[in-house]
């Protein structure tokens, strides 16, 4: 019995780590850059495929790929924001109108990124084997790559939190999240900071993608399901709250693991049920005011 509980809890945390990373990125993009990014999962997919390619073609260690994929995706995200979303933001009448139109533009981006990926890598399911051996934790056995994934998810999440809390740039980002207009008056280059936030959000997604590619098979159409999970986690943690998203990821991972144990086909349905109940009862999330 104890081993079963341990199994459920650790499995939940292992999945939760990846959910957290993706959701933190999503939360940053929505909370600061005000883009409800339907294409968020696509950046994750790009991260996963670049890692796969680096491993298969050049034999690069997937953990080292974090340092290669991250910056590439960061730049792509930054440029996308500067070319598309800055223009949408300045031409929109209100913040509500901008949120609507940026969400729809990101839906178009989903098609573009996904189909470019299909053109490059094809539609087949791909995967590689890395650190694929069992580790015994108090009687329950877990794959080593998944434990490494969890470790890295926590480290990346903590590093990101310190970046936001302690650095000058992090302060500028938090200021832009609270009030873009005033932050602009205080000397924050608002267009650059918002674009950076969008880029950083994409970077977190690509980290998630790299970690996922170590444990699971990947394919170009995998992004959307993770976008949906990111949306659920972000609502769970409170829209725009970075810490909330990080915790929410683990909560959702645990919920998924508990429900799967009881009825494997129902985990996604349980996510939505949780999501719908939460939106109705407490739309500001578990940590919201």
């Amino acid at each position: 019995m104890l081993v079963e509980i341990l199994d459920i809890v650790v499995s939940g945390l292992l999945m939760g780590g990846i959910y957290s990373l993706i959701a933190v990125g999503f939360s940053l993009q929505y909370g600061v850059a005000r883009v409800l990014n339907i294409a968020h999962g696509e950046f994750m997919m790009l991260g996963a495929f670049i890692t796969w390619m680096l491993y298969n073609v050049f034999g690069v260690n997937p953990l080292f790929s974090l340092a290669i994929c991250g910056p590439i995706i960061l730049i792509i995200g930054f440029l996308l924001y500067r070319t598309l979303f800055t223009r949408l933001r300045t031409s929109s009448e209100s913040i509500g109108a901008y949120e609507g139109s940026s969400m729809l533009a990101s839906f178009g981006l989903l098609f573009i990124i996904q189909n470019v990926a299909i053109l490059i890598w094809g539609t087949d399911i791909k995967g590689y084997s890395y650190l694929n051996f069992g580790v015994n934790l108090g009687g329950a056995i877990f794959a080593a790559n998944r434990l490494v994934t969890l470790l890295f998810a926590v480290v990346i999440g903590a590093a990101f939190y310190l970046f936001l809390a302690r650095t000058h740039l992090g302060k500028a980002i938090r200021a832009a999240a609270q009030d873009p207009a005033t932050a602009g008056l205080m000397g924050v280059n608002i267009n650059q900071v918002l674009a950076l936030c969008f880029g950083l959000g994409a970077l977190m997604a690509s980290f998630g993608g790299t970690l996922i590619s170590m444990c699971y098979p990947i394919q170009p159409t995998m992004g959307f399901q993770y976008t949906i999970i990111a949306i659920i986690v972000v609502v769970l943690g409170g829209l725009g709250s970075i810490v909330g998203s990080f915790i929410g990821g683990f909560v959702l991972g645990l919920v998924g693991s508990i429900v799967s144990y009881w009825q494997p086909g129902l985990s996604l349905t349980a996510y939505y049920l949780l999501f719908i109940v939460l939106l109705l009862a407490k739309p500001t999330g578990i940590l919201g005011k």
Partner: protein
Amino acid sequence: MDIPTLTSKRSLVSGSIILIMFILLAISPLYAPRYTVILLTSIFMYVVLTVSWAIFSGPTGYISLAPAAFFGVGIYTSAILGKALPLPIVICFGALASFCLALLVGALTLRLRGIYFAIFTFGLVEFIRHLLLFWECTVTGTRGRIVILVDQTTVYYVMLAIFAISLLTSYFIRGSKLGLALQSIGQEEDAAAHTGVNVTMVKVITFAISAFFMGAAGAIMATRWTYIDPYTAFNPLLSFMPVLMAIFGGMGQLYGPIIGAAIFTYLEEFLITRFPYHYMLIFGIIMVLAIVYLPDGVVGLLQKLWKRIPGRKHADT
């Protein structure tokens, strides 16, 4: 010439143009090739979805991503009842099922504002789909359903009729007190509530009316596909398409969503046949460009160009 006769003359002209168009469309199965009839049916389907989406979301500014849910409910109603009941009754049931779902969902969620509402409606589609998948896997042990076929011409006429009714409904709502209330909600919801508009009631009723037509369209479209399953019936793409089509056409005018839906559907057909491998990519690019560069849609662009024609300037002033 005083203003009332001018406007009545204008509405008479545009009314008769629309009437002639409908007559031409009504007799088209007699002379047009089979492919054209099928294409026109697809166009009508998207027009119905877009026009009915715009009935609620256009004036209020609430972005509903639930069309796929209502459309899918229509499809499933048709698949379940199609064998037992005659077609018109099946369609009515499909429409009513969507109407009731929208009443329930609207009453629960329409206090959510802005992006929360969009997220919720988006989640609703996914929720219904996964619940159905689970149900089919574990309870009934089947995957998907076979739908009884109806011939193409009948589907065409039914779709044309739904199109005409939804258009008329949209037109009358625009001119009515309800339309005015919706617009005031879109501009400033709190102010609308203070001036005596029953905000919740107005929103829920209109949301349900728009769902009614989506359900009807789903019920008839199901008969064109022989086989349906939760993935085809509750496809999230069908939630986004009406939104994009309405924006692409321009929501300022009644005919904006119609033009947007017609152009987009034709474009989709064209791209699928010409560039089967790159069509989604091209589609995505057009989508993004339309949102960024055509915020007022095709109709807005035409109006702008119309004003720029030299010699028209003093006619306007």
